[in-house]
């Protein structure tokens, strides 16, 4: 279903001026399907599969934005998401009234997002001092540092146990923690994030960022401030990841160091790469596959008469297969399958990696 939309999106890329008109049929179909989904699926599927893949997809989308348009693979996006979640809990209300500041959510959420963006700017300022594979290593080290810090700091982050009993706000008389409202809430923000990245990729800032990805020296010679653009990209990505992180915390009702450990950071990279970092819809496809695998891996493995605990093995092998055979993710596979007859056309989307 999402694949159909990717096709429309891909075609639209070639003719930017007409993209609104051309995107409509497939995107509208997908959106309509997602809007009526609560009538089809039960609340477990809605929250555990759909809402979760929207949230993970948003965090992976922030990585896709950095990697696909900026050429910077940051493993610290889950860290920023977790940081925003922690901030919402600390400035807002949580299980231990003594430790939380207790401001209402409409104060806590903007503060958390601004702090997440500042955090993202700091990470970006450190990471842009290096390039390419160095960025991966440095952001990985930052992610690990934040994990250890939350794990050992009891004064603010409540150490290994983390923070629990974080309420989802009530607004307009709706309890947004219920399955159907939360589904629509995460769908709304995921759509907005996807739209924002799509729009930004064609805006002057996004074009300059892609220029910097392809040739930083030439862009510098043209008068663009390369590092400022890169750090700004980190800030935008931090905002998207921060929204995802807050939704994640509301969905789970708790946040702990396990939310931001190295495994989680790598899972976000896996999601983005499996989906494809050449297109903003890719991370959502990756997240959908990940959520299905993670929820049903036990059943799938047991059906195949294998040990149900080998979920990560399955994820790792799938990731390896994707990286080996289709560097541009599932979207790349789809494009290649679609273009199988037309030999003249080179499969597109391969330039996604920095």
């Amino acid at each position: 279903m999402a694949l159909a939309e990717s096709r429309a999106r891909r075609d639209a890329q070639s003719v930017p001026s007409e993209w609104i008109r051309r995107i409509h049929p497939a995107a509208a179909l997908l959106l309509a399907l997602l809007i009526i989904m609560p009538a089809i699926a039960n609340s477990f599927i809605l929250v555990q599969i759909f809402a979760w893949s929207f949230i993970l997809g948003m965090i992976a989308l922030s990585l896709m934005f950095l990697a696909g348009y900026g050429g910077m693979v940051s493993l610290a996006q889950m860290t920023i998401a977790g940081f925003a979640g922690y901030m919402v809990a600390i400035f807002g209300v949580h299980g231990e009234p003594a430790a939380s500041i207790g401001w209402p959510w409409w104060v806590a959420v903007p503060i958390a997002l601004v702090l997440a963006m500042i955090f993202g700017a700091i990470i970006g300022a450190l990471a842009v001092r290096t390039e390419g594979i160095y960025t991966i290593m440095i952001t990985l080290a930052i992610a690990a540092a934040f994990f250890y810090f939350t794990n050992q700091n009891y004064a603010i982050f409540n150490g290994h146990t983390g923070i629990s009993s974080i309420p989802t706000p009530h607004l307009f008389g709706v309890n947004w923690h219920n399955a159907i409202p939360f589904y629509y809430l995460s769908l709304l923000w995921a759509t907005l994030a996807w739209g924002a990245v799509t729009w930004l990729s064609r805006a002057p800032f996004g074009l300059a960022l892609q220029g910097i990805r392809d040739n930083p020296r030439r862009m510098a010679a043209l008068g663009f401030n390369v590092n400022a653009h890169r750090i700004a990209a980190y800030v935008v990505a931090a905002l998207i990841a921060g929204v995802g992180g807050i939704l994640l915390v509301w969905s789970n009702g708790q946040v702990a160091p396990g939310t931001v450990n190295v495994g989680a950071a790598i899972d976000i990279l896996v999601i983005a790469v499996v989906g494809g970092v050449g297109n903003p819809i890719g991370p959502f496809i990756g997240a959908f596959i990940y959520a299905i695998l993670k929820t049903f891996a036990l059943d799938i493995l047991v059906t195949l008469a294998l040990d149900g605990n080998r979920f990560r093995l399955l994820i790792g092998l799938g990731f390896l297969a994707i990286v080996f055979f289709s560097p541009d993710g599932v979207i790349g596979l789809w494009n290649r399958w679609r273009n199988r007859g037309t030999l003249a056309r080179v499969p597109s989307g391969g330039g996604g990696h920095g």
Partner: protein
Amino acid sequence: MLTVGSAAWAGGGLRPNAFPVLCLGGGMNAFVARHPAWSLVMIFVVVGLIWLVFAPWPPGFEEVFGRKKLFLNATFNGVTLGGLYFLVASGFTLIFGLMRNVNLAHGSIYLLGGYFGYMANDITGSWLFSFVVAFFVAAFLGVLLQIFVFRRMEGEELRQTLVTIGISIVLADLMLWVFGGNSWQIQTPTWLRGPVELPFITAVKSSGEAVYLTYPIVRLAIFAASIVIGVGMWLALNRTRIGMIVRAGVDDREILAAMGVRIQLVFVLVFAFGAGLAGMAGVVGGTFQSLSPGEDTRFLLASLIVVIVGGMGSIPGAALGAIIIGVAEQIGLAYFPTYAIVLTFVIMVAVLAVRPQGLLARR
């Protein structure tokens, strides 16, 4: 840079005419001439450290810094841990320096070597033999990785990195499957058990008699071994023909290949050696710490930080970074245990902010 006598191999450089670091002798004079103020500061720091370690502390001092025994123990633990970090990180940095690929499965190789060393020690009862087993198992895995993964995607750095992440996920889960979630410890052989008294004064009794530091002999032996390996690597790189080829490959592998050197063979050998070092480090880590799931990530991160601090691709950089990180970790553990691990990251961030290429990198 190709002369055999050159002592300037620091690796990782792209510009052959760049300022060579860590030349013993001439290079040091050049450094002093360039940065007289920094040299003075460094001399003061080194003299201060030597005084802290060797001299009996004046009474007022102990009130501020705690007992000298605590400080000495933390320092020794840090330096010996630095030796272990060096063993892991030197392979990592060597592979990066020559082949420009970041092997994020390095931690998995470390843990795999440790597990195989454990089994070898358990079956044969010979601790030294377990090093041989760990080295060859890890080296074999390295050869497989180089031939079936890295050779197929040469020059695609990001893809290689992603593949190694995938491999580390798979290996971690396979090891969890086979060896379970328990932690294992390799038994120290009898001839290395027990403490030894060292000529470092920890305190002076009221009778005027000096108390000397006692320290586990196995950690000292392992540290000595890592120094021997480090010096051996330095000599092999700077005094032998294969070392010359490797150094030339670091500078420009295309030209080297054009001159008829079988570069792919050199790549396989270097990868095998680097992985083998990580495997042996696994036995060392399994002896004075333990082996369990999660140790692979821990040592991968440690080597990442060590090489970021020391400079990617530089063997002397790896040694310096390993000692700094090891000592910082242990001193932190002794004096402010809650934030000990965070301290190492603070050092990394500080180095990145001041010298992004690392302390001893050539670029």
